[in-house]
């Protein structure tokens, strides 16, 4: 048995090392590299576009191509997240939280080095976990049913405490809002419409891609427009080096390994992909590192944790796909299509050696593909890193138009749904307000990604087992872990407070009208949502009620605390911008940039992506930022060529024509 495994492991490598497979893998890597870097355009979208090409390939070649592409998007996505504060992939949003502040401090090189090295470690760990899991995977996965999946989602939610930042109360309200946003759409059991406002595009819920892009990218663009500087505000050369980041990875080796494990093992669970594991890993980094107040301001641990986890997730993700044919996420659903096209049936036969009619060598070739693709990518990245980091010194006015265009393009291309652009704008503004008022955005995202899983599995558990599921052994273990997870931060905070008692008092509390208004809005919207939910009926209403009423109570509590002026805010937290820009100028520039962002969307709606997008790029450069003619024309032409050649001709994205042209067209 063991000899057979070893033989298959070796022959898996030979499958990858044929000229055709290796060549296709390199092509896949190159594609994944670019797709990962481009914000918005995600791995799944591209995988779907590449599916038709694999019909004529051999299985080992097809998977070398597709997996090579999938394996590197999380790595190169980190680059965009760090440099621009814009998520390159939805799975790399968490790298922004500390990686982008590092870039702003002139430490882009160090952050990139840390992200790449931890990505490599994570990917290798994930591949290793996949290889090791192969003999034991079936009993392991079959031991878990809906009740255990539900408890895992609940356990994941306890990580909110670590993501909450300054105020646990705000963190809980934000997570609750995320859970409420997750209820938008058809409820999974009875098909009742919840908060869909008669919009079909909301039936399947709010897409994670537009939310993540809007939530993190738009505030960053506004910030850049207000400051009118390059991304890097300070120039450190001493600490800025890439090698420093590599060394950080080994300095915090324990953390990187633990976060890789989180990625790989949580990734096995259907419904928990990189969009979840990155945040769990980030939360773990916050919890386990000294000085939690450093986080969000450029702590390298906050880059290492998610960097490792979003890469190791792929290995974990592949396990249920290969062993059961059950895709654990969108990427895997598309890979499953590739299995079908290749005439392969995922399941036990993937784990049996070829000599007995199985495809074990092929399965091991997946492991090798992940390993090789990541080594190649990281090596290539390191060659260019110091150059890449220089992007942060380019002035913001030149970066804003192309980044905005990419965001809108990517949001559309994911589902070919124009409505997703409105979601980008809505969540962009929400994210901006939350950032300014110190509400933890990650907590909301975690609630959003775990909500559907929790609700779905809760009902499946109760329908299948009644109340008895609570007594299942693994459920009891997970309940204990959840309690421990919930109580540990509280206990730790208490003991730290005791140790630190007598140190300087908190800064004077300040009342802020904007802050109170926002909390009031949350209370009102939640109230309306609860009132609406009375029509849902018991099945569809239970989850919104169970979440909504407690969150409403917590939001009211927050409102009371704020109105009484008891809120503790960081001293610097109330201004719209940095010192050096007067409040009036900052307010004017903020309003202006929001106008441009909305206007960009309006132009695309009116004139289509090619003309509207190009025109806005031009106007933003020439009128908005008064750039010189040569650079304006060059960038505008570049944007137009990019939209036309890459998206229209290359990817054949079905852009809707501008409304104006529809009106002008003779009926």
């Amino acid at each position, binding site marked *: 048995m063991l000899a057979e495994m070893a033989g298959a492991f070796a022959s898996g490598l030979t499958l990858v090392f044929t000229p055709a497979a290796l060549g296709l893998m390199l092509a896949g890597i190159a594609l994944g590299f670019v797709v990962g870097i481009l914000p918005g355009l995600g791995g799944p979208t591209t995988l779907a576009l590449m599916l038709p090409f694999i*019909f004529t390939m051999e299985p080992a070649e097809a998977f070398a191509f597709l997996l090579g592409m999938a394996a590197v998007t999380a790595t190169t996505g980190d680059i965009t997240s760090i440099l621009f504060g814009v998520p390159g992939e939805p799975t790399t949003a968490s790298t922004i939280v500390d990686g982008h502040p590092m870039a702003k401090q002139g430490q882009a090189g160090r952050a990139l080095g840390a992200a790449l090295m931890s990505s490599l470690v994570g990917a290798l760990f994930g591949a290793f976990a996949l290889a090791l899991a192969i003999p034991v995977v079936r009993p392991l996965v*079959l031991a878990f049913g809906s009740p255990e999946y539900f408890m895992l989602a609940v356990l994941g939610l306890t990580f909110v405490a670590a993501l909450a930042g300054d105020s646990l109360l705000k963190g809980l309200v934000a997570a609750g809002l995320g859970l409420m946003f997750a209820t938008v759409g058809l409820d999974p059991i009875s098909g009742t*419409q919840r908060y869909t406002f008669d919009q079909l595009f909301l039936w399947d819920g709010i897409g994670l891609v537009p939310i993540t892009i809007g939530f993190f990218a738009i505030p960053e663009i506004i910030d850049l427009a207000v400051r009118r500087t390059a991304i890097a505000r300070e120039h450190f050369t001493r600490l800025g080096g890439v090698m420093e980041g590599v060394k950080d990875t080994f300095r915090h080796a324990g953390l990187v390994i633990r976060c890789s494990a989180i990625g790989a093992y949580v990734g096995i669970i*259907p419904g928990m992909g990189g969009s979840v594991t990155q945040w769990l890993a980030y939360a773990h980094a916050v919890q386990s590192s000294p000085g939690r107040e450093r986080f969000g301001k450029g702590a390298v641990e906050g880059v290492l944790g998610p960097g490792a986890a979003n890469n190791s997730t792929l290995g974990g993700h592949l396990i249920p796909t290969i062993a059961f*044919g059950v895709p654990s996420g*969108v990427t895997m659903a598309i890979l499953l*299509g590739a299995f079908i096209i290749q005439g392969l*049936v995922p399941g036990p036969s993937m784990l049996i050696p070829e000599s007995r009619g199985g495809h074990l060598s092929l399965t091991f070739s997946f492991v090798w593909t992940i390993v090789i693709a990541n080594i190649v990518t990281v090596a290539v990245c390191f060659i260019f890193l110091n150059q890449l980091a220089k992007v942060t010194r380019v002035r913001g006015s030149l970066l804003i138009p192309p980044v905005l265009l990419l965001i809108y393009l990517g949001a559309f291309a994911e589902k070919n749904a124009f409505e997703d652009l409105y979601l980008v704008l809505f969540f962009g503004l929400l994210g901006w307000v939350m950032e300014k008022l110190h509400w933890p955005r990650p907590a909301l995202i975690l609630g959003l990604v775990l909500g559907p899983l929790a609700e779905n599995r809760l009902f499946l558990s109760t329908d*299948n087992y009644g109340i008895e599921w609570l007594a299942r052994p693994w459920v009891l273990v997970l309940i204990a872990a959840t309690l421990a997870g919930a109580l540990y931060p509280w206990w730790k905070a208490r003991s730290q407070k005791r140790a630190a008692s007598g140190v300087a008092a908190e800064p004077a509390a300040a009342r802020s009208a904007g802050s109170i208004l926002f909390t009031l809005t949350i209370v009102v919207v939640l109230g309306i949502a609860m009132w609406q939910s009375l029509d849902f009926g018991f099945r569809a209403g239970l989850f919104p009620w169970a979440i909504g009423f407690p969150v409403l109570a917590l939001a009211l509590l927050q409102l009371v605390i704020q109105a009484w002026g008891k809120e503790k805010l960081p001293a610097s937290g109330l201004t719209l911008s940095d010192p050096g820009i007067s409040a009036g100028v900052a307010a004017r520039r903020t309003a202006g940039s929001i106008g441009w962002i909305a206007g960009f969307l309006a132009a695309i709606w009116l004139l289509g992506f090619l*003309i509207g997008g190009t025109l806005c790029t031009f106007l933003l450069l020439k009128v908005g930022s008064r750039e010189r003619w040569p650079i304006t024309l060059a960038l505008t032409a570049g944007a137009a060529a990019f939209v036309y050649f890459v998206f229209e001709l290359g990817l054949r994205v079905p852009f809707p024509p501008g409304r104006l042209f529809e009106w002008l067209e003779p009926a």
Partner: protein
Amino acid sequence: MNKRLPAALTTLIALAAFTDGAAQSQPYYEGKTLRIVVGLGAGGGFDTYARLIGRHLGKHIPGNPTIVVDNMTGAGSILMTNHLYKVMKPDGLTIGHFNGAIILGQILGQKGIDFDARRFEYLGAAVKEDVVCGLTKASGITSIQRWQAAKAPVKLGGVAPGATPDNSGRILGAALGLPVQVVSGYKGTSAIRLAAESGELAGGCWSWESMRATWRKGLETGEVIPVVQIVAKPLPDIPNVPLAINFAKTDDARNLILVGVQNSSAFARPFALPPGTPGDRVRILHDAFHATLKDPAFLAEAKKARLAIDPITGAEMKQLVADVFKLDAAMIAKLKAALY
């Protein structure tokens, strides 16, 4: 404002006009791009058929247009089908592929449906959807007799109201009086399969073509048993599995099975054009579609992917769809009671 702005604008618009203007050459489809829009996700069964057909369709159309397959997901393909009906142009350059179960949804008054299924121009389908119920040996329900005798409801996996596994399970319960509890909310038949293997469910009912491929190991070892098939005549590879309809004792029960599951199988996976597409283009595409389904190169790739091919013509499909709309109000009420 800058004086040179209007000039730049004109250039841009001219550029767009240039890129938009297709050459006016002889065969209509020459130099054109034909889209197949799939209402369900990439990588799934519907998508795979569409992509396979898309690879070969072009060469059977005069003018050899470029074929592009893309996905517009949402609301179990209702979103795309509404678009096909209302928004997409009837110029013969768009083919929609959706889940035919929503045609029954239209008759039953399912919310969100904004189309009239009778007005589409159907190209037909590549395959029928023959429903079989597979249950695990571990559940103890190894035959329909044991099912009839079961004391507790037999748990079958469901996806969402109106989906094939849900409809089939509920119809069996309503028409044959079998003890059934449909547990709905699983994310697709693969999740149902996993839950059945872990013992959470007894099994589920969905297309045999997909079940025999994805559950091959279980079926071969006898861990999974096809207990009943909801089809008109036994499928060739499971001739001894009983037909559901033979256990129906009343006309109403028979009709429920026919309308709720059996007759829908032929329009379960339709390819259709927007209403009002010019007749000559419908003919060109219909002929090309069916020529593709006979193309040896296409069939070889379908065989490799183990995709069954069992074509239904556009005329057959249009007739079957029209028939469903002739149901009387009493029958519709019974169907609604059984399914929702």
